[in-house]
């Protein structure tokens, strides 16, 4: 049991971490409600809150820029998440259950890919994509996103699959199940939380990317939200688009927060299960 003193220290520590992590979010949230005249006022809270920033990105000048980039972000992130989850599930299943030469190599390669700095690949990729016509297209972003999401997905899922009691499949077969039924009824319910958690992590990685998004796109054909924010302009050239950017940032943060809140139990159990016995 914790003593009172320890409890106080824990509470203080938790508050410090929360403030550190959430203050920027709160600042952006507050800023998104400020009219343009107040942006430089230096106060934290807007004195006369307004929805004009949200109006401008959802219905006003910046609407086209923002909504098209939102569509790109959602589409590209979802597709690369689905693809990465399917591929990572198959790969991790093979690594966890089968014995084949080069198993270590696959794991090490995927680790090597994930520690390669993004910024060092982006210039060659820019040239390559321009040559083969992938520049400024959805596949042009989906492919590099998968290079970010696949390694971590493979590693998390392998760790997760390794501690699934696979003999349950055999138990189910003895109990009268076909091979498919055994997999469906005994294994899938246990594997699903891991796959689900991994998919969420992959989605956030793709959703949050900036470097690829800004370097490999040039128009609203494929530009995702984080990159599009840089292209916001104020209503006049003397006006900073800070308010609109803040509003857009809040809008793109919402899905992340909602997903995490909805699935926090699965995420925690998925992550810790993989972590404890990997």
């Amino acid at each position, binding site marked *: 049991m914790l003593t009172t003193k320890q409890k106080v220290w824990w509470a203080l520590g938790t508050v410090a971490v929360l403030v550190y992590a959430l203050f920027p979010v709160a600042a952006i949230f507050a800023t998104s409600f400020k009219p343009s005249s107040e942006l430089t006022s230096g106060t934290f809270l807007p004195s006369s809150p307004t929805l004009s920033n949200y109006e401008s990105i959802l219905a006003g000048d910046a609407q086209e820029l923002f909504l098209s980039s939102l569509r790109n972000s959602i589409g590209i992130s979802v597709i690369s998440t689905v693809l990465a989850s399917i591929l990572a599930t198959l790969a991790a299943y093979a690594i966890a259950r089968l014995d084949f030469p080069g198993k270590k190599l696959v794991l090490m390669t995927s680790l090597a890919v994930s520690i390669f700095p993004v910024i060092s690949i982006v210039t060659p990729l820019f040239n390559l994509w321009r040559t083969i016509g992938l520049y400024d297209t959805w596949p042009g972003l989906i492919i590099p996103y998968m290079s970010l999401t696949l390694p971590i997905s493979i590693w998390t899922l392998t760790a997760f699959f390794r501690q699934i009691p696979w003999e349950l499949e055999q138990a*189910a077969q*003895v109990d*009268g199940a076909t091979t498919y039924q055994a997999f469906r009824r005994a294994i899938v319910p246990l594997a699903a939380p891991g796959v689900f958690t991994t998919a969420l992590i992959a989605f956030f990685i793709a959703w949050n990317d900036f470097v690829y998004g800004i370097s490999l796109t040039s128009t609203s054909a494929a530009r995702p939200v984080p990159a599009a924010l840089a292209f916001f302009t104020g209503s006049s050239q003397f006006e900073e688009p800070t308010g609109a950017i803040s509003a857009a940032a809040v809008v793109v943060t919402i899905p992340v927060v909602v997903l995490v809140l909805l699935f926090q139990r699965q995420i925690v159990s998925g992550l810790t299960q993989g972590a404890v016995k990997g």
Partner: protein
Amino acid sequence: MSAITLKNIVKEYGDGYAAVNDVSLDIADGEFVILVGPSGCGKSTLLRMIVGLEDITSGELRIDDDLVNDKAPRDRDLAMVFQNYALYPHLTVFENIAFPLRLTKGALSDDEIDARVRRASTLLELDEHLDRKPANLSGGQRQRVAMGRAIVREARAFLFDEPLSNLDAKLRGQMRTEIARMQRTLGTTTVYVTHDQTEALTLGDRVAVLRRGVLQQVASPRSLYEQPVNLFVAGFIGSPPMNFLPGTVGESSISTPFGDLPLTDRLRSAVDGREIVIVGIRPDAFHDVDESDVPDEAVRFEAEIDVTEWLGSELYAYVPFTSHDDVAAKLEELDRDLDGEGMRTQLVVSLDAMSTLTDGDDATLWFDPASAHVFDPETGDNLTRDAERASKLDEHGAKARKRAIERAREKAERGEASVAVPSAG
């Protein structure tokens, strides 16, 4: 309920290692057969071949009269309890037990499934745990859930793979009796794998002893204990294990480190010209001269007791000796086969608990030479085995089993109604 027939079953794993080698075994309908042997001898492999989780390299496996070598597990209709229980962690106890029934796809109504699960859970005293998940149960409870899943199905036979090895000693004893009772009540053919010779002797109608994939002896527990076919079976069955002493054959006696056995007709024909033999004597064949009447034919010897262990119901005394070079190698090999630690050679003597002997005492002990077995040091064969007596013991065992099953069935018929009423209501 079914008979299971194994004919020249061989299992070679990918690396060419024959984990099970030419095993033939007839398991009668309703019989409780134990497969026993030290770990790694191929028991699980054999069981998994019977249930269909492992391919049979060669040989024939029949259930009743069907050849099932190539049938999938589900088509063999056998129920198995795994060593680590293999419960479905995402399902409640109820659903775990109901799992095999749900797979019968509409053959059973929900009411019927419910009734059957509750009958099994009552039998296994799991009623108050039906809504819990396996992770929240104790080891013994999990074990019973696994058994429940096996018995709801009314399968053709039960297969157990070391079901009690994850339980503590006290629970193991309880569950052992429970399994014996359940098998008698249901009268279902059962194959039970264990490395524990106590379980083998207490549970089995017949016990099959395996060593490195080869079947050594199949016999009733009594026959196995009294008339083992070779050194391995003699050393494996019985606790503490049989003492093996080097014996030098002389004109009129076999001399051992603990007295000379006179060459009676029985021993003379057993020895049959050999110069060195291994003499096997069970610990409980020894007695203290001061505490018992010594018969005329007894062999007496002086011993300096090294260590004693008092267990309440008996007293174990240990007397070290040096083994003969010619048999030392054979005994060391035996020890390795039996998962031993290559400990120094010592005589184990099981004496009356009232004995006052303590460490360091000098004692005069005796044993009846008629209780001694003589083994060939080369082949390990038991040279004194009385086949006639052995088959008499087996017959006796078979009769006892038949009676027990009949009694249990009568009882079940009488009791059936009282079990069925609450589950139907």
